[in-house]
């Protein structure tokens, strides 16, 4: 319905309601005439009076953003009538969980690789050092040298793993992991509150989410002392098989969320155990090598 003698077309809202679209129509800026479906969706979900109610309580500067969110929500509800925006939120949470678990596993692998590299470097140095020491020192002194260093190395090996340490941005995911489609009343608002960040979408100031715990771990790795070790490094390649086996196994569980969660937890445990096993083996082999020389 056009204005009398006017050239401007009625907005989609007034067209739908078959009424005159005045110059100060509150919905005209948000529902252009060439997109009737947009208004139909918003009208179907919220209704005109509810939209106007929401608009009335906002500052003029917030109205455009609020209307965009209402239109978006209505369009999503039209596309997914059962779950609407909640389905998308749950899917995003799940993706975040997957990504975090994957990151943890990759960091564990990286830590292992770095440690392996350092061991290779230290093996090259220690070969020359140990030759000098064995030529100059008594066997009992060599044994005490081993005892001095070995416990520290073992502790650092274990503590370098990012097992059990969640990045701080996953603090919300701990709550959201338990969130399901059931209604949460006012007593259970923790997970819901953790999702709401009062900021415009283009603002990148979500720096409250800290993603730097891995920096701490890399410092921990770099501070490891050199491991005095004989030529017992060939079994390291054999010990790396469990890592890749666990990662490949996990890929087969993509379709099943529950199966994935249980398998990822067990694979992380397997990773921990295999790396601890490596450290133990290194100690035992080093001890065996030195015990041959400790003759009184």
């Amino acid at each position, binding site marked *: 319905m056009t204005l009398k003698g006017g050239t401007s077309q009625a907005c989609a809202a007034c067209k739908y309601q078959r009424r005159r679209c005045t110059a100060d129509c509150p919905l005209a800026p948000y529902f252009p005439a*060439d*997109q009737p479906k947009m208004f139909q969706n918003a009208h*179907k*979900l*919220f*209704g005109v009076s*509810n939209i106007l109610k929401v608009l009335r309580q906002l500052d003029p500067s917030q109205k455009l953003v*609020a209307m965009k*969110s*209402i*239109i*978006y929500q209505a369009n999503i509800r039209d*596309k*997914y*009538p*059962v*779950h*609407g*925006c*909640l*389905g*998308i*939120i749950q899917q*995003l*949470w799940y*993706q*975040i969980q997957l*990504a*975090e678990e*994957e*990151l943890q596993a*990759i*960091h564990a*692998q*990286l830590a292992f*690789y*770095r440690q392996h590299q350092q061991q290779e470097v230290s093996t090259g140095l220690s070969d020359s050092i140990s030759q000098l020491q064995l030529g100059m020192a008594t066997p009992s002194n060599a044994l005490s040298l081993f005892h001095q260093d070995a416990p520290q190395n073992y502790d650092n090996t274990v503590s370098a793993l990012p097992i059990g340490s969640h990045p701080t*941005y996953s603090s919300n995911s701990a709550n959201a992991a338990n969130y399901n*489609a*059931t*209604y*949460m*009343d*006012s007593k259970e608002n923790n997970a*819901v509150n953790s*999702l*709401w*960040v*009062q*900021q415009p*979408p283009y603002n*990148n100031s*979500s720096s409250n989410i800290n993603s730097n715990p891995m920096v701490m771990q890399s410092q921990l790795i770099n501070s490891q002392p050199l491991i005095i070790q004989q030529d017992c490094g060939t079994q390291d*390649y054999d010990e790396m098989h469990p*890592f*890749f086996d666990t*990662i*490949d196994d996990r*890929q087969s569980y*993509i379709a099943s969320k529950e199966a994935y969660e249980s398998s990822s937890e067990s694979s992380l445990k397997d990773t921990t155990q295999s790396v601890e096993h490596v450290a133990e083996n290194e100690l035992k082999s080093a001890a065996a090598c030195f015990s041959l020389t400790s003759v009184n």
Partner: protein
Amino acid sequence: MASSSYSNSPCAACKFLRRKCLPGCIFAPYFPPEEPQKFANVHKIFGASNVSKLLNEIQPHQREDAVNSLAYEAEARLKDPVYGCVGAISVLQRQVLRLQKELDATNADLMRYASNEMPQGYPGNSGSNQMGRRMNNADSSFGQYEYPSPYYMSSWDNSFSGDHPDKPGDSNT
């Protein structure tokens, strides 16, 4: 699920609307009298008639999920009248993007280590290559939720093609 309207008290919706809760009340199974705030929120944001029309358009076994999602969205809109639940979607999408970037970077590091440590053609190399693709695979496995990013849509109306995975009669339902 809530008690039916045959029992002692009317459902929360009929109590709120001050009307008789009839045996076929569409709200009764999903708005129990013990949760009055749930219906109050939904009614305030969406309106009882809109909710009733929505519920009538979807299949009975999906109505509980629909009501719960409406209740969540209503509460979100009440707490944040500007963004509602869309704010959460925006934040989560950015988190996902950031995590993807971090995964890509970390995978690149890993592959550098792996290629330096191991000979070419080692099975572990292919395993680590596929690792970083899990996010993309996860995206495609949830293809039924292909949603635009909020505030980036230019012409929703023109591009809206009618892909309705949740509509009745769909093979998924």
